[in-house]
């Protein structure tokens, strides 16, 4: 921001001031292609059509509004282009700035460096106001997920989307925990079932009661008794001696329950396919990108520096890159979600299998039973692959599972061979009963844990599903609103074509897509059946519908060269649509198409018109609304500061522009020149044309101003001659000041004293008028004698 008079767009949003904010004046200084100052007057917020050939600088207006209202110019946000916000022609005395006057509170002034905080744009950052030809179909060409993201942001629902993602993460975590708890329960059930299959409180209690009765032990009345240590001690009373034999039995029983981990090769192949893809390579940066986004949103960053590494970086381009990367990360993450679970589960199962067998090996060692070493399993490697998103080696896993199966067989054989040949003693049986009771206890704890995990998951699923459904329903309702309007606008642009039911539709849980009926078949997306110009019409319809539906404050819409792919008929329809269908809004339409400009001007006579006629390195854009008085004022200011050379250059330009406008209005006969060369006529040439015209049509006027013209001719050769200023005999400030006064006097000759607009500006030279109509050409007092 520059200067103490800066005003910034208001941070606070008022819902009462709905869509009323219109631009009344735009002042650009040393900005883009403007070396000095250029003002565009929109009256009380009138619509305007702006015409100019390529390269005449008309898009500078769009750039200025985009910079002011968004904090950046999208196509300059890439690396190495940011400097181009400043005047592109080189050194300028002016400080780069854009000043906006509106009929509300959004006006103000911004300069370089732009130090406005991110919150500055909170009230308006979701507003849609700018559509450019070069980015016309950007939204249409986005993927479904990108469209969803863009819509969520436009609709201001990103905080709701963030919470949905957190709920999803919590739900996924609970799914894993619940799955692990259920697996634990299954393991205990397998151990307790011993081939009978059905494991429940009743069957386990009945079995225990049967065993106790056979051993002459008081049977437990409930399973609660079984897990009570005092009951166990009293009823069973196992001794250390017996424990040893019992341990071996218990070990053998456990070996019998072993089964190798299951491995589905297809899951491995699916993982490898995704892990090898380009998108998956983004995922390791996901947390960094999310953290960067969070820092952006909270505003807790050092402006102009990367929040993560601290290097200098352009704020806007970084924000855009983060957003784009997040979308890619999200899509890659979704692709990985399903297969990741399968691989994670495999890793857990391999680790569990390894630890369990290691435990059996150790227990066997304490009993003097020598089992073969447990084969190494690749669970750690699998975890690494999961963390690093690397492909897994399927053959190594298949081979490891096979090794486990072999180990289980040989361990079982060895354990059976060394098991006591004699039947168990009663004590042994009692200790086995104690071991069984401990297993029952562990099983019941696992059941409780699994039930709790299941309830937590059920609650999470319920809240998450309802949340996602409501989000989708709300968005669907909003999309219906947009779709109705998009369809209306599209039909206006393409009446009588067999393209119907245009709409924006939700797509699965997290996508949005455009759709259209094409000869009875639903096309989603419509790219396959629509031409480029039809797609562009769709983009314009979408832009207008979204602005109408969602804008809360910004009441102006800016369309910059959006008709390039349209034929004459469709250009006409768009002109009519803009003129008739959006009269309550301020439309600023830039075009290089003269028929479209003329058509829109005729259709919307109340609109202002501005023509960019040329652009030059020295003086920037020239328009039909010349500003000699402003240039003269600046020249005087330069002179007051002692800069005679610059004052002389500005005075010369003011004289050129004055003579150009007068010659244009008088239809002064000048030698034919093609295109923009008309703007580059020299003062001598213009004076010649002026004198010839006045001689024919207003001789007395010519006589009255001839001395002034002669003096000005002399000024052009001396006081206003830039080359002379570089010489030793350069003129002094008083000469330049006198020349400035003579130019002002000539300007007065052609200006209405009432409305201050120039007489004969545009229109028929035989019936020339000023804007208010009170001054005519030729002036009555100087009418040529009949």
């Amino acid at each position: 921001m520059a200067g103490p008079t800066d005003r910034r767009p208001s941070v606070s949003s008022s819902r009462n001031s709905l869509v009323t904010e219109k631009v009344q004046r735009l002042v650009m200084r040393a900005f883009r292609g403007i070396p000095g100052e250029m003002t565009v007057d929109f009256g009380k917020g009138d619509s305007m059509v702006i015409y100019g050939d390529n390269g005449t600088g008309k898009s500078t207006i769009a750039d200025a509004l985009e910079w002011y209202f968004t904090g950046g110019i999208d196509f300059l946000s890439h690396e190495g282009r940011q400097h181009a916000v400043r005047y592109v022609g080189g050194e300028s005395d002016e400080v780069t700035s854009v000043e906006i006057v509106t009929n509300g509170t959004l006006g103000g002034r911004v300069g370089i460096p732009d130090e406005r905080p991110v919150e500055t744009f909170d009230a308006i950052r979701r507003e849609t106001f700018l559509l450019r030809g070069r980015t016309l179909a950007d939204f249409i060409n986005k993927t479904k997920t990108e469209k969803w993201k863009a819509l969520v942001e436009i609709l201001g629902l990103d905080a709701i989307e963030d919470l949905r993602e957190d709920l999803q993460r919590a739900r996924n975590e609970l799914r894993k925990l619940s799955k692990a708890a259920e697996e634990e329960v299954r393991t205990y059930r397998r151990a307790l079932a011993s081939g009978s299959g059905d494991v429940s409180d009743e069957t386990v209690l009945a079995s225990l009661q049967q065993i106790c009765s056979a051993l002459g032990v008081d049977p437990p009345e409930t399973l609660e008794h079984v897990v009570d240590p005092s009951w166990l001690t009293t009823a069973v009373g196992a001794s250390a001696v017996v424990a040893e034999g019992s341990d071996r039995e218990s070990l053998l029983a456990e070996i019998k329950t072993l089964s190798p981990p299951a491995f589905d090769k297809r899951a491995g192949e699916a993982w490898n396919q995704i892990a090898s893809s380009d998108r998956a390579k983004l995922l390791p940066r996901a947390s960094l990108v999310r953290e960067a986004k969070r820092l952006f949103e909270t505003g807790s960053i050092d402006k102009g520096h990367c929040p993560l590494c601290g290097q200098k970086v352009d704020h806007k381009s970084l924000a855009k890159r983060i957003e784009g990367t997040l979308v890619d990360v999200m899509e890659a993450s979704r692709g990985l979600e399903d297969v990741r679970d399968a691989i994670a589960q495999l890793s857990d199962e391999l680790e569990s299998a390894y630890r369990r067998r290691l435990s059996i090996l150790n227990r066997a060692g304490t009993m003097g039973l020598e089992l073969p070493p447990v084969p190494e399993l690749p669970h750690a490697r699998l975890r690494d692959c999961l963390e690093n998103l690397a492909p897994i080696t399927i053959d190594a896993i298949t081979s490891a599972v096979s090794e486990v199966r072999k180990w289980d067989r040989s361990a079982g054989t060895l354990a059976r061979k060394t098991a006591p040949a004699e039947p168990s003693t009663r004590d042994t049986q009692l200790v086995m009963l104690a071991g069984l009771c401990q297993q029952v206890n562990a099983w019941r704890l696992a059941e409780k844990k699994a039930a709790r995990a299941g309830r937590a998951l059920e609650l999470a699923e319920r809240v998450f599903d309802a949340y996602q459904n409501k989000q989708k329903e709300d968005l669907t309702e909003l999309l219906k609103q947009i779709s109705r309007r998009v369809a209306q606008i599209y039909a206006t642009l393409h009446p009588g074509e067999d393209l119907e039911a245009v709409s924006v539709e939700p797509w699965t849980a997290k996508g949005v897509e455009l759709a259209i009926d094409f000869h009875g078949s639903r096309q989603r997306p419509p790219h396959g059946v629509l031409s480029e110009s039809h797609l562009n019409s769709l983009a314009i319809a979408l832009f207008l519908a979204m602005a109408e539906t969602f804008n809360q404050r910004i009441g102006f819409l800016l369309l910059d060269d959006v008709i390039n792919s349209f034929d004459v008929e469709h250009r006409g329809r768009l002109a009519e649509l803009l003129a008739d269908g959006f009269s309550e809004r301020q439309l600023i339409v830039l075009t290089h198409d003269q028929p479209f400009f003329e058509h829109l001007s005729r259709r919307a006579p109340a609109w202002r018109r501005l023509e960019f006629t040329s652009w030059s390195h020295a003086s920037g854009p020239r328009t039909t609304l010349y500003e000699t008085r402003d240039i003269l004022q600046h020249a005087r200011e330069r002179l007051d500061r002692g800069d005679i050379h610059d004052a002389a250059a500005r005075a010369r330009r003011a004289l050129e522009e004055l003579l150009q406008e007068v010659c244009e209005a008088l239809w002064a006969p000048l030698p034919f020149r093609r295109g923009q060369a008309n703007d580059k006529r020299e003062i001598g040439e213009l004076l010649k044309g002026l004198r010839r015209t006045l001689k024919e049509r207003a001789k007395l006027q010519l006589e009255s101003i001839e001395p002034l013209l002669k003096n000005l001719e002399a000024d052009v050769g001396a006081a206003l001659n830039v080359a002379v200023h570089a010489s030793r005999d350069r003129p002094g400030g008083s000469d330049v000041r006198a020349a400035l006064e003579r130019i002002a006097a000539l300007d007065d000759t052609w200006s209405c004293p009432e409305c201050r607009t120039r007489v004969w500006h545009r229109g028929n030279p035989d019936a020339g008028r000023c804007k208010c109509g009170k001054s005519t050409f030729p002036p009555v007092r100087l009418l040529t004698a009949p």
Partner: protein
Amino acid sequence: MHRPSAQEFLQALLETLDDLPTDLARRFEEILKNGGADRSQALRQLFEEFAGD
């Protein structure tokens, strides 16, 4: 167009769900208010807590 906050959105949603544990809405509100990078962890713990024993 009214743009609800995440809190308003969630609150409206919870009111439509029957038989939710008492106090769940208030605990959600606390988590949303506290913010923090580990919000998903806090939400997981909240679901576990309300699952009971």
